[in-house]
């Protein structure tokens, strides 16, 4: 009979580090897991069976690699970016990448479809076939915000579906000080015997101090010193990271201020982009040609297409018509000549007909028409428009 058992292990420091990463981020976080996988076979003999074999698979997670942002190594179609994976794991042997993780707030402990697809695609790419996915889901337990919870599970593909595996947190466990003996055995012969006296010096450096205790204490002290040195290096690097982040924030603020300043200068020098620029030459030409038609000198029309008289340009632009617009001057002179000859002919006709065509057209216009507009209509209908 065979029995399969999988265990996932990580230290409290790795779990703490994962929690720390998520607490410092507003969004979900993701990353890869590095560790090793150990398989063991145990034979177990029981009263009922002599061939009970236990296959134990232990996955030890040693560290996690943080991804700067989510979806960094896969796209929206859950396809893995091999280049990105290689970049992330450049300092590690790809065989040591044993899984990936995701942390998402206020959600259930279930793999989403997207996570399942990413996992399958990662399995195809990475050499370690029994890849694990760890899901961490922090949430609030009470509405007051006094109590918070983090749940965590490992998921592994077992050929037909994903199964969840309990994560075991490695810790000190029982440092059982009850293991110390406070009393000796009640055998005085043991203390006096030649065997003990002869070999005692191999264990004791002086009368009372044990060599083994000295050696392990020295090794532990050396380890603590090494840890202190590592701590000092980490502290320096933390301060440097902090300083660089502060410098970057300052630079971004300075750039933003500079850009705003430049934008303000640009807007004061030129007119606002929303207002159309006035063609002063055209305005002067229209004024010269149609002095009694101020509505022609507007750039603003109503929705129905009528000129808005309130915004008609009435300013003198100081344009010297003979030098800047000589054609307008020529035309104006021609217009005056034509008008004079037309007036003479109409006087002759009116004497014959009695009522002019102009007056008939006048009566056809609306009663509410402004007298200025009436004149404008007359002017326009006299074919005064320049021909270009």
């Amino acid at each position, binding site marked *: 009979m065979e029995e399969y058992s999988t265990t996932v292990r990580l*230290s*409290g*420091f*790795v*779990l*703490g*580090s994962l*929690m*720390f990463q998520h*607490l*410092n981020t507003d969004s979900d976080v993701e990353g890869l897991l590095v560790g090793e996988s150990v398989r063991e076979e145990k034979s177990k003999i029981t009263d009922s069976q002599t061939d009970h074999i236990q296959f134990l698979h232990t996955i030890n997670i040693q*560290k996690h690699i943080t991804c700067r942002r989510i979806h960094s190594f896969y796209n929206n179609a859950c396809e893995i970016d091999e280049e990105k994976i290689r970049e992330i794991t450049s300092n590690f042997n790809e065989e040591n990448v044993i899984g990936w993780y995701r942390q998402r707030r206020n959600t259930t402990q279930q793999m989403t479809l997207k996570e399942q697809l990413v996992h399958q695609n990662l399995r195809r790419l990475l050499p370690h076939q029994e890849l694990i996915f760890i899901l961490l889901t922090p949430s609030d*337990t009470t509405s007051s*915000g*006094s*109590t*918070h*919870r*983090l*749940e*965590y*599970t490992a998921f592994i593909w077992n050929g037909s579906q994903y199964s*969840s595996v*309990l994560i075991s*947190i*490695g810790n*000190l*466990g029982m*440092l059982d000080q009850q293991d110390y*003996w406070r*009393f*000796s*055995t009640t055998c005085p012969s*043991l203390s006096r015997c030649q065997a003990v006296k002869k070999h005692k010096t191999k*264990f*004791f450096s002086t009368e*009372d101090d*044990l060599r083994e*205790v000295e050696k*392990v*204490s020295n*090794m*532990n002290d050396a*380890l*603590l010193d090494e*840890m*202190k040195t*590592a*701590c000092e*290096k*980490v502290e320096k*690097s*933390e*301060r*440097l*990271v902090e300083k660089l982040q502060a410098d970057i924030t300052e630079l971004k603020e300075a*750039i933003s201020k*500079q*850009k705003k300043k*430049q934008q303000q200068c640009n807007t004061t020098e030129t007119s606002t982009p929303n207002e159309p620029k006035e063609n002063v030459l055209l305005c002067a030409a229209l004024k010269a040609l149609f002095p009694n038609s101020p509505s022609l000198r507007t750039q603003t029309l109503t929705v129905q297409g009528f000129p808005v008289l309130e915004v008609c340009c009435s300013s003198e632009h100081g344009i010297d018509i003979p030098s800047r617009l000589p054609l307008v001057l020529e035309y104006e002179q021609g217009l005056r000549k034509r008008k004079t000859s037309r007036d003479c002919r109409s006087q002759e006709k009116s004497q014959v007909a009695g009522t002019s065509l102009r007056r008939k057209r006048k009566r056809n216009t609306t009663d509410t028409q402004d007298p200025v507009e009436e004149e404008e209509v007359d002017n326009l209908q006299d074919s005064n428009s320049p021909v270009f």
Partner: protein
Amino acid sequence: MAVSAVHLESDAFLVCMNHALSTEKEEVMGLCIGEVDTNRIVHIHSVIILRRSDKRKDRVEISPEQLSAASTEAEISFNFTHRLAEMTGRPVRVVGWYHSHPHITVWPSHVDVRTQAMYQMMDQGFVGLIFSCFIEDKNTKTGRVLYTCFQSVQAQKGSEYERIEIPIHVVPHEAIGKVCLESAVELPRILCQEEQDTYRRIHSLTHLDPITKIHNGSVFTKNLCSQMSAVSGPLLQWLEDRLEQNKQSIVELQKEKERLIQELASL
């Protein structure tokens, strides 16, 4: 008056969590360092791991007198070593305590509530934090860690105390502070000192024969090896990983800084 909320900086939270997760067989405790502002919000920006002189598996609290002595010593040591008061321009002091509940519910026991009430007699703004860990749901194969914050008030009936919930927010603090780092690496040192003290006490018993002494030496070696394997080793690993991560961040941040300097110069 009760505290309105607790703001615990994430690097201080990390130290508490590491300490709580260091052992599933006994409760651990420590002190919270920080200040209380005018809105009655307690700001905790570091913690001190406490060494327990009388270890019991199921109890962790110390008497108010011991707490007061420990707090004074902690504050003196803390301010002397770190000169935090000078650096921040604000007085810093012990503002609360935390302890762990391995394999048990996060809610404070009646003893915890009574202990908290006694601490509050010395300082009404004193808060208690509890970290519950090593909780496992065998059915769903889910592990769980919880943390809560509380104070104590006199119950309406009788002379007992009851807990009141205090909202707790973990405030992001991406870079780990010097004080928190030093507190984190204090844990293996404290464990080693506790073990050495226990061993010396037993080894000093005069009536022990050589075989017993050799046995006790082996127990000491075994226990120290357990500490190195379960605590010092993983902690050293984490420090090295953090250093590596910071080195990569420094390279990326320096590139970003140079790019921004060029952008500013071009404007």
